[in-house]
Structures are given as C-alpha cells and as structure tokens.
C-alpha cells in the first residue's frame, strides 16, 4: 500500500525529539487557548504564526506546532462549556446543551472525560478520512486549469458564509474587501504599482499576517475593553470535578453515537462553507432525532455530550482536506492555517503532495501523535486546564495584545506594520459590531492574488475571451455549486441560524 508507506515516512519525520516537543507544546497551548473564553482556535493560531515564523522553525516543525494548537483548541473549547455553560469557542457551543446539565448533576468529571474520548474518536477517524480522501481529491484537482481554479476560488468565497449565514450581502462585502486589500502593491504580471498612493511600505502589499493578527487578536482586546470585562468567568462559581473516568457502560452506550457523528462531522468539515460549528450542530441534531426516545437530550444525556464533541473534532479534521488538497480552506481556522503555509513559502494544492510529500505526511503523522497526546493530557490532567479558567481577562488580554505586537514587530521590525495592524484591529472591532464576518476578509487577503492571476492566465491563454471561464463542464459545475451555495442560505439560512443562535452570545463574528 502506497499510503501506508508514505505514512511511515511521515512518522519517521515527525518522531524526532524536537517535533515531539513542539507537538506537546502545541497541544498544551492549544488546549489552554481553546479553554479560555475569548481566545478561540483562529485567534490562538493567529497569534502564534508570527512567532513560529520569527523563531526560524522549518516548515514541518512550524506546521506541527500550529496544527497541534489547532487540534488542541478543538479539545479545549469543551471545558468551559461543561463547567461554566460558556462556550470556550464557537464549535463548543452545542456542548453546553448537555454538558452543563451533567456538571450540575455532579457528573462534571464524567462529562469532561467522556467528551475527551469523544474528541479523540472524532479526530482519529477524521485523520484517517483525510489520509484516504485527500489523495483522491488531488487526482481531480490535477485536472484543473486556471479557469477551473478561478471558479474554485469563487466557490470558496461564495460558500464561506455557510448555511448558517443570514446576510449574504455582508459576506460578499467582506470577501470583496479582503480581495481588494490583496490588490495593494506592485502587480506581479505587469509590474505597475496599484493602490499604493506613493507609500513605499505598500509596494510589497499588505502582509496577511498583519491583517490576521489585527483583525482577530486586537479586535478581541478592544471588545473586552468595550465591556470592561476584566474578571474571570469562573469567579464565584464552584468547579467540582469529581471522578475523572467515565464508567464503561457510559462509553459503551455512547459508542454508536460517536461512530455515526464521526462520519457526519467529517463530511460537514470537507464540504465548503460548513466547518466545525456546523459539524457539531448537525451531529447533535441528528443524534437527538435518532436516539433520543426518552427526551433526555438537553437534561444531561451523555450522548448529547459525545455527539457535538465528536462532530466538531471530526469536522476540524475534515476541513483540512480541501485546505491541503486544493489550497482552498473551508473555514476560518483552516484559513489561518493556510496563512501558515503561505508564510512558510509552501503553496498548498495538488502539487504539494508530489513536491513536498515530507510536509504533508509529516503533518498527518503529527496529527495522530497530537491526538494521542491530547487524549493523555485531557483526561488525567483536565484539572490543570480548569485552573486556566480562573485567570482573569484583565491580566490575560494585555498579554495577548503585547504578544501580538511582538510577533508582528519580530517579522519586519517596522513601526509601519504595527500601525497597519492597529488599523486592522479597529476595523475588525467595527465590522464585528456590524455583524460583518471577518473570515472572508482574511481569506481574501490570502487568496486574492492567486485568484486574480488565475483569472488573467485563463483569459490570456484564450486570447482575451472571457467566456473561457465557463467553457468546460468542470468549471460550469463549480460555478453551479457556488451559485447554489450563495443563494441557499438566503432561503434556509434564517431557520438554521435561529436554531444555532439560541445558545450563542452576541459577538460571534469569529465563526469557524
């Protein structure tokens, strides 16, 4: 088997002391960041990218560190959902529904360890899914020409709002704004400066890392300042954990649920525009419909904890498939991971699998390793992470802000970039207030140039004929999916969103 041989090579790369240490560090930091309300997976990875970059880590080690953070954050989000009824990040929202009632019944330890196991199962199967599905997708992607790529990028932007989006006009605005920002700088094909207004610093364009850290991390700090939310959410609440291992009968009862939702979550993750939040949402809804005969869901049913946790971790793995195989991420956090790759000068997409197999398979092996580490960390040591919830944000947020500044300053050493980052922070705050999604802006600044050059290449090949964009069945198919994906939320979006929103706090612009 080809795949197993490659996977073996991957393990050979990942199993060095340095990489194992980085994976351990990443898992730990990720769980902490996922656990803290206000610091989600996108935020966490965003702050760490410039650091991994300036520390001079190679491509594979940085990827191992940051994807461990990504998986770790998916695990960590559940802790505050269960103990405090406050989702640590958005995908963990559904875990509140049954997790917190369980904790109230005195079963907090069982809920935490069961959800840890559920997270492990979801992520484990999704990583296998990634191994088998990504190479197949690569085979299709190799048939893509520039016109198809342009359609694929359009598809990514048009479906990014997801089925849960209510205002597609705002998603479209955000995408156009992001791509528009990417246009700043010297045009790569003709060499003329665009939108630079004579400012020399703008000639190489806006660094997407500056945009990401500003939009995600700094705007979060401003939101906290606005509410003067300086205390810790855990203060004044007692957090009894109790026994740390779930009874075997509970695991047995949840096994079919976990297996079903692994598949469902994985599919939700692979599909464009879905992502981890939707993965956990549909997993919970499906299980409620399938197995909830005594109406126990919502009152602390262990299966209601296992379903969304398996679903969101499986979706997190599934979302890596389009990101690695096509270079087109389907969710906010994978957009941030794409930024990691681009910052390391690695272009994801079909060629990645043939040109940098060490990166791909090293990464996949690292995902397995990280997953086992997270299981080991999250069950016996969960008490440690609950302590993290006690850190008040009046201490945490200044640290977040300063680490963001250090990271960006470390890349370029220029005050100009810091000013641009502050500008993005203020813009991010305003847009979040207006409920404009930030992820399309990020994706726009990341992919804008690639999108434009594919458009121009396609049309130049066909001597200036714009109809070449819809000339092949493949591109017509992609455009059709894109249009359906854009129009569908206008029809069904309000219903789905209303259901998901029932349990969500107001500032959810950082959706995954």
């Amino acid at each position, binding site marked *: 088997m080809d795949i197993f041989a490659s996977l073996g090579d991957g393990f050979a790369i990942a199993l060095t002391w340095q990489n194992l240490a980085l994976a351990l560090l990443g898992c730990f930091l990720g769980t902490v960041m996922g656990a803290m309300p206000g610091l989600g997976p996108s935020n966490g990875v965003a702050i760490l990218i410039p650091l991994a970059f300036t520390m001079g880590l190679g491509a594979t080690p940085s990827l191992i560190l940051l994807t461990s953070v990504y998986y770790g954050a998916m695990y960590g989000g559940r802790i505050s959902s269960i103990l405090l009824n406050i989702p640590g990040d958005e995908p963990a929202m559904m875990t509140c529904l049954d997790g917190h009632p369980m904790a109230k019944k005195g079963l907090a330890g069982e809920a935490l360890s069961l959800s840890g196991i559920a997270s492990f199962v979801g992520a484990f199967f999704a990583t296998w899914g990634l191994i088998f599905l990504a190479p197949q997708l690569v085979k299709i992607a190799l048939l893509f020409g520039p016109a198809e790529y342009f359609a694929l990028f359009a598809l990514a932007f048009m479906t990014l709002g997801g089925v849960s989006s209510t205002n597609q006009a705002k998603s479209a605005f955000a995408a156009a704004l992001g791509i528009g920002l990417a246009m700043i700088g010297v045009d790569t094909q003709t060499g003329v400066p665009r939108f630079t207004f004579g400012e020399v610093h703008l000639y190489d364009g806006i660094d997407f890392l500056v945009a990401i850290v500003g939009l995600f991390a700094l705007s979060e700090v401003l939101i906290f300042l606005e509410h003067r939310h300086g205390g810790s959410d855990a203060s004044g609440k007692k957090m009894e954990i109790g026994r740390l291992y779930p009874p075997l009968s509970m695991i047995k009862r949840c096994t079919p649920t976990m297996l079903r939702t692994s598949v469902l979550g994985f599919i939700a993750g692979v599909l464009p525009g879905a992502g981890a939040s939707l993965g956990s949402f549909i997993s919970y809804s499906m299980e409620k419909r399938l197995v909830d005969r005594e109406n126990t869901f919502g009152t602390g049913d262990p299966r209601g904890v296992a379903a969304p946790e398996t679903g969101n971790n499986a979706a997190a793995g599934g979302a890596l498939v389009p990101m690695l195989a096509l270079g087109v991420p389907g969710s906010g956090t994978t957009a941030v991971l794409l930024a990691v790759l681009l910052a390391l000068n690695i272009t994801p997409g079909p060629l990645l699998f043939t040109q940098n197999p060490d990166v791909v398979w090293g990464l996949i092996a690292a995902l397995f390793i990280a997953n086992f580490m997270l299981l080991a960390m999250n069950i016996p040591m969960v008490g440690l992470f609950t302590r993290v919830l006690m850190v008040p944000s009046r201490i945490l947020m200044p640290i977040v802000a300063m680490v963001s500044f250090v990271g960006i300053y470390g890349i370029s050493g220029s005050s100009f970039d810091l000013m641009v980052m502050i500008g993005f922070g203020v813009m991010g705050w305003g847009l979040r207030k207006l409920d404009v999604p930030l992820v399309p802006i990020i994706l726009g600044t990341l992919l804008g140039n690639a999108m434009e050059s594919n458009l121009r290449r396609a049309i130049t090949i066909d*001597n200036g004929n714009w109809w070449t964009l819809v000339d092949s069945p493949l591109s017509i198919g992609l455009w059709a999916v894109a249009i359906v994906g854009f129009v569908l939320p206008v029809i069904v979006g309000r219903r789905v969103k209303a259901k998901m929103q029932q349990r969500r706090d107001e500032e959810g612009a950082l959706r995954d």
Partner: protein
Amino acid sequence: MSDRIFGVFGILLAFAYAMAALAIEESFLSDAVGPKAFPLILAAILGLSSLAIILKPDAEPRWPALGRLAEIAAAVIVMIAYAQLLPEAGFVIATAFAAGYLAWRLGSRPLEAVATGVGTSVGIYVIFHLVLGLSLARGPWGF
C-alpha cells in the same frame, strides 16, 4: 440605521476604489486582461453588496455608551503611541507601560496593573529574547 450608514460608506468606498483602479498606469507590456479589470470587478461587488445592505438592513447592533467608545479610542491612541515609541524607548519600557495601561483600563487596581505591565514585559523579554533569540526593539539602554 447603522447598517444604512455602513452601506453608504461602502458605496463611497467602492467608488473610491474604482477611481483608484482607473488611475492605475497601464504598462505597454500588458496581458489581455490588464491590471485594472479585476479591481473594477471587485469595486462592482463592493458597490452592489453595499446597496443590498442599504435596502435590507439588519437589526440595530448594540453600540456602547459614549464613555466606552472614549475608552476604546484612548486604548487605540496608547497602542499607536506604543508603535511609534517602541524603537526609541526600547522594548521593555514601552511594553511595560502599554500592558500596564491595558490592565488598568480592564479593571485592575493600580498596583496589580503595574505588576501585570512589568510582568508581561519582562516575561516576554526573557522568553522571546533571551531564550528564543527573537530580536526586539532596542532602546537607549539596550533593552
């Protein structure tokens, strides 16, 4: 209402973007599409989506009271001052002040704010500069 104002702003932005795109100098060695076409498409999308936002605005967001807005403005000014003074004052001093200010405004008592500021600054300096070797801004005293 906020959405309507935002939409008007968006249309102005689209218009300005289109103007700036039209002002791009074409090189004589251009491809079939040229550097202007794609930005013009983007300006059209910006304009159309802004129009849709004006026609069908969402519910009004909850804007903070004037005092909180002033709070945010003050924090932004402190951050800008931080960005400008970083190369002159050096990393440790500038960061201690900025982090201390943010901690204070988030509700720390003065003593705790000073401790947070100094702790953050020295902590980052030790971990990132001394241990990991990241180069940080040097002030007149070399730190």
